Each structure stands twice: as C-alpha cells, then as structure tokens.
C-alpha cells in the first residue's frame, strides 16, 4: 500500500466481495483492513466497500465516522446499489428483497448515514474542564427519523469527522439509480466496459446533476478498468478521454504477483507519463478537489 501511496495514487478502494457474488478470499473484512492501513499510510485516500445488507445504518455510520477520524480525513464508503443474493442468505434474508424494495431501502440507508455524519456541528465540542461543559447541547442534533425500512433517533456517538462526511462512492448503478447517484454521490464508479457506454452514462449523470441544481463537476466519474488488460499509460489516457471520465479505477486481483506487477510496473509508468500527480491538501476531499458536503 505504501508503494501505491508513493506513486501518488489518490485512493485505494478495498472490495469486500468479488463482483461475481462469490465470497471474498481476503483474510480481512474491508473496514477493519481500512483502519489498519490508515495507521501505516499518511496521504492516500482509503475507501472500503460495505454493504447495506450486512449492516445497520447507525452501526455503519459510526464505523466510517471513526475511520475518518482515525485516518485524519482520508476515508470513503463504497456503497453498492445492487443486492447480492448470497449475502442476503447469510444475513437472515433467504428470500432477499425485490429489486425495487432493495433500491428504496439502499437510498433510505445511505441518507440516514449521511444525516448521522453531520449530526454534530463543527464547534459542538467545548472541552471546558473548568465550567464542566464538554459539549454544547444545542449543537448536537438528533435526527428522529422514521422511514419505510428504518427508524433512527441519533445522534451519532462519534464526533464530527475531519471531512464532515466521509466520501460517498456509488457503484453497480442501474438506470433507475441515476437520479439518486446524481444527487448524492461524491464519486461514481462506472462499470460500463466500453468507452461509448461509459461516456453516455457519464453525460447522463452530469446532466441530471445539473437538473438537480448541483454543479455537475462536483461528482467525480471514474471508469473501471482491469489492470491486467491495460498495458500502459497511453491506453489508459485514451480510455479516459474516450469515456469523458475524470479518472480510472484499476482493478487488481488480491494475489501478490498481480499486485507487484501493478505497483512496480504500471503505477510508476503512469506517473512518468504525468497521468497521476500529487495533489495538495490532506483530506481525500482535498485530493479529489471535492467540496465539503453541504447536504442536507
């Protein structure tokens, strides 16, 4: 991971299951691995995948707020919008959800997490030993939410994190998810395999963001490519240009040989070609030139 950081990559995204739906072969669950990596790296952004089926929103909001504090503002959450039937069967949902139900549930889940993240105002903690006031009670806001799938009183029992909100990445999008993604996501991972399809998806998301009153450039679009099939910087640059994306997420298999090829050969080559560069700023939002989240 330090090699990836030294090559000035913006972030690593730690998957928690294989896209096929097969169980992960990593010895580490993604958020626990993220915490460990946070303490042995300094600059690189750290994004963990975590499923809305495997967690409760209150628990997951706490986990990521903590990780953001631990990493000094370098954390993101990759939330998949599609359910994995295998996971449902291991989480007391043998029948799973219908696609529509799962979509509504995922949106409700994500919005609860984002609201919990900003439940404490920036200056809520007073630390005043003499007067005995640890925090200002008026700057701590319960959410008192009752929805279709969850009800959560809040507030979070973790302080406001350095990024205010850890980054929200959305992936595995279907057409029906585009409206939500265009309003909420900081980063979208586009799984479209061909550049014209990726470009269409990218344009559509930016268009919808504009319609929703959001700066379309405030969402970073990343196209997903396989590190094994991308021999050099030129092909990646072409992919980026043709897809209209802001960057590329390279998938690397969790095997030492694959990782070595990626970090020893491909990354230094991309850096030599000026395709990756160091960004100023300490937090992941700074690195990606994203605003602090103003929502809600």
């Amino acid at each position, binding site marked *: 991971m330090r090699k990836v950081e030294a090559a000035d990559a913006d972030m690593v995204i730690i998957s928690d*299951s294989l896209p096929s739906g097969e*169980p*992960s*072969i*990593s*010895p*580490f*669950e993604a*958020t*626990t*691995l*993220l*915490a*460990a990596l*946070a*303490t*042995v790296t300094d600059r690189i952004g750290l994004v963990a995948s975590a499923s809305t089926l*495997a*967690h*409760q929103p*209150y*628990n997951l909001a*706490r*986990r990521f*707020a*903590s*990780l953001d*504090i*631990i990493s000094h503002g370098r954390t993101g959450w990759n939330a998949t919008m599609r359910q994995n039937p*295998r996971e449902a*069967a*291991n*989480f*007391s*949902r*043998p029948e799973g959800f219908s696609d529509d139900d799962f979509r509504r549930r995922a949106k409700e889940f994500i919005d609860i997490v984002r609201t919990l993240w900003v439940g*404490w105002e920036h200056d809520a*903690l007073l*630390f005043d*030993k003499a007067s*005995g*006031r*640890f*925090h*200002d*009670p008026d700057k*701590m806001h319960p959410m008192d939410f009752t929805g279709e799938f*969850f*009800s*959560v*009183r*809040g*507030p979070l*029992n*973790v*302080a406001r994190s350095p990024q205010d909100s850890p980054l929200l990445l959305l992936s595995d999008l279907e057409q029906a998810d585009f409206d939500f993604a265009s309003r909420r996501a900081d980063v979208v991972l586009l799984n479209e395999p061909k550049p014209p399809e990726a470009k269409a998806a990218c344009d559509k998301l930016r268009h919808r963001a504009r319609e929703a009153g959001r700066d379309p450039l405030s969402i970073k679009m990343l196209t997903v490519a396989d590190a094994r099939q991308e021999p050099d910087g030129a092909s990646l640059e072409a992919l980026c240009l043709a897809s209209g994306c802001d960057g590329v997420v390279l998938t690397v298999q969790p095997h030492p040989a694959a990782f070595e090829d990626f970090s020893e050969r491909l990354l230094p080559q991309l850096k030599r070609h000026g395709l990756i560069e160091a960004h100023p700023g300490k937090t992941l939002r700074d690195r990606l030139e994203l605003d602090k989240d103003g929502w809600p």
Partner: protein
Amino acid sequence: MTPRQMKLGLFLWATGHHIAAWRHSDAHVRAGIDIDHHVKLARTAEAAKFDMVFCEDAAGLREANVQIASQTSRSIGFEPISLLSVLAVQTERIGLVSTASTSYNEPYGLARAFASLDNLSGGRAGWNLVTSASPIEAANFGATGLRPHADRYARAREFATVITGLWNRRAAGHDGESFSVRDPLDVPPSPQGAPVMVQAGASDDGKDLAARTADVVFSAAQTFEEAKAFYDDLKGRLAAYGRQPDDVKIMPGVAPIVAATRAEAQAKYDALQELIPDEVGVALLSSYLSISDLWRYPIDGPLPELPEGEGMKSRQALVIEQARRDGLSIRQLARYFAGARGHWRLVGTASQIADELQARFEGGAADGFNVMPSWFPGELDAFATLVVPELQRRGLFRTDYEGRTLREHLGLKRPIRN
C-alpha cells in the same frame, strides 16, 4: 510448575472511568477524538504485560437528557472495531477485546469482523457478548420498545451458537428463530482458532449463557463475599455444559487510585469526587436503577422503594443492596457509583492495593481483574509503574508473555473444531 498467576485486563474508556475524569487537570480531554492517545494507552498496558485491553460499547448515547450528557465526555468516542483494528497493527502481544451487541448485529457480520481482527492481530482478538438493555440504543434500530430480558437472551443464545459455529468451521446452513445463515465464513481461520469469548451479564440468564459459551467473564462486586458467591456460582454451572472450572477466567472490575502514601491516594480520590456535578451523579444512579424520576426525591434522603425493571437487573440489585447496607443518601450513593459505576474501588498505596487483589485472587473470588483507571493517562501509568511491579515481586503476575495469542496469555484451550 508455575504457580497460578492472575490475569489483568485494561478497561479502556477514553478519558477515564470516573464520570468526572475528563475534568481532571491531568486527563486528556480530547481523548475521544485522538487515536494516538488510545495507541499510547494500549502500549503502556502491553509494556506492563497486561493480558488484554477491553473496549466497552453502546450503539447510542449513554444519557438521554442532553443537559446531563453535555456535562460528561461519554457521548463521543471511537467505534470499537475500528479502534481495535488500529491497535492490532500498533501493538504486538496484548489481547484486543471489544464489546458488540447481539441485539443490533447479525452473527455473520460480527463473525467476519472479529475473525478479520483476529487475523490482523495474529490471534489476539476477543468478543464481549452483550445484550442491549438501553432504550436509547433501541431507538437507533427501529425498535419501538426494549425487548423483554428473556427474549434478548434467547436471541443472544442463538447468536452465540451461530457465531461459534462459523468460527469453528462447523457446517453452516443455520435456519433458526432469529437468524438464518447459508454459507460458511468467508474469512480464513486465525492463529487462535477462534476469537476469545467474553461475557459480563450477571443475571441468571447471563450467568447461564456465560457458563455455556464464555472463556472470560467480567463481573462487578463490591465485597469479597459478593465476588466469591458469583465466582462459585458461575464455576459451579460449568459442569452442566461439560466444562472444567479452569476453562473460564473470572475477572471482576477494579477501579484503583494509587499513590506513594495512603493519604495522597485519598486526596487524589477526594479531589476527583468533588468534580462530579450532583445532577450528573443522580442521573447516572437513575440509569443503574432503571428509573427516570429519582431527582424528585430529596437528594439527602434515602433511596425510595423501587420496582424491578427490564433494564440491568443485576446492577440495580447491587445498588439497592449497597444503599441498605451502608445507609447511604441519594447524594452519597450517586457520588459513590459515579466514581466506578458499581465496581470495586480501591484507594491506597501499591502494597495496600496488591494486598486486596491478592486476597480476592487467593481466596477464590477472582482469576484476575479488569483494571479501570480513574483517569487517563495518569492513573494507568500509576498502576503500571507502582502496582504491577509489586504484583510481580509477589509472583502473582507474569514478567513476560507466555505466548503470542490471547488464548495463550489466558491459558485457554484452543476451541475444538468439528
């Protein structure tokens, strides 16, 4: 053969265990947002050869009244699995135990998280199983009310069965009352076989579940007689589950304040007690008693008669017993329990504290202790530099780790894998 030695856990709690710890001039007031502080505490405990660090947890605020809550440091802290993941790579030998509730988790998810933590730490992870008794937590998980005590334990029993099955690689395919799980765990087994199982419930249901599944039991007792009765009761229940007395380590909480002289230790304690606002003390006492209107009664009068609630039954009984025995007023009780939350308070020199610990250990009332420093880092440093060497001189505590894993520190068998 090495004589029997006591086990020591360090009970982490950001600013310290005393309710007013954060106001102490020596306490690190930003502890709840400072990860380096926690790393330092764990390393101090590791240098002193503690068996483990232990994190308490609640999935919600600890105090519903915002005015009260804002006068304590307990509304914020690190989510413990993230915290222990950090400690796993920042320490080498010490065990890492965290609380997680069976009420608001799923066994497959927790099994993955703790197995992952066990792999990250080279076999040093432990899970403290709790059922959640707080209506504040319940309101964060869609519950309209707290579930009855018996239901919480039925769910916890099923949870423990499923999670140990997953860790021990027994065939999956569980389809029960509260949970269904199809696949085996997708995280490889750790050097320890399975994370250590810890429990703290002291009700009848709690003790029975502990006798069935726990490797370590944390308890709270004021007097030697209480501690001994609990110890004998729990160890006596093991045979019914085919277990030996030594398969479970019983570690009562102890909140020491130590100094070079008895008078100096007492002065430290008194100064800390003075920092407790009455309304905070009474609110905390109310929560142990599971009633909401204790403030209506005269603060210098006696505790009123109370009905038994659905909350923490054992703690409620302990408070009432203490009040009747010592004839304490509400204010006195509030101060007393605010200091160590019902745990055993020791104030004295290293030698006096070692005497007390030795008496309970050798008297068959404890296998070790869960140490609850009153404020951090000062009182941990004092315990590590004054009391631990005294225990070592007496041959009561190790001078170096016997092994690598938490099971090895505790002298526990590896779980049997079917």
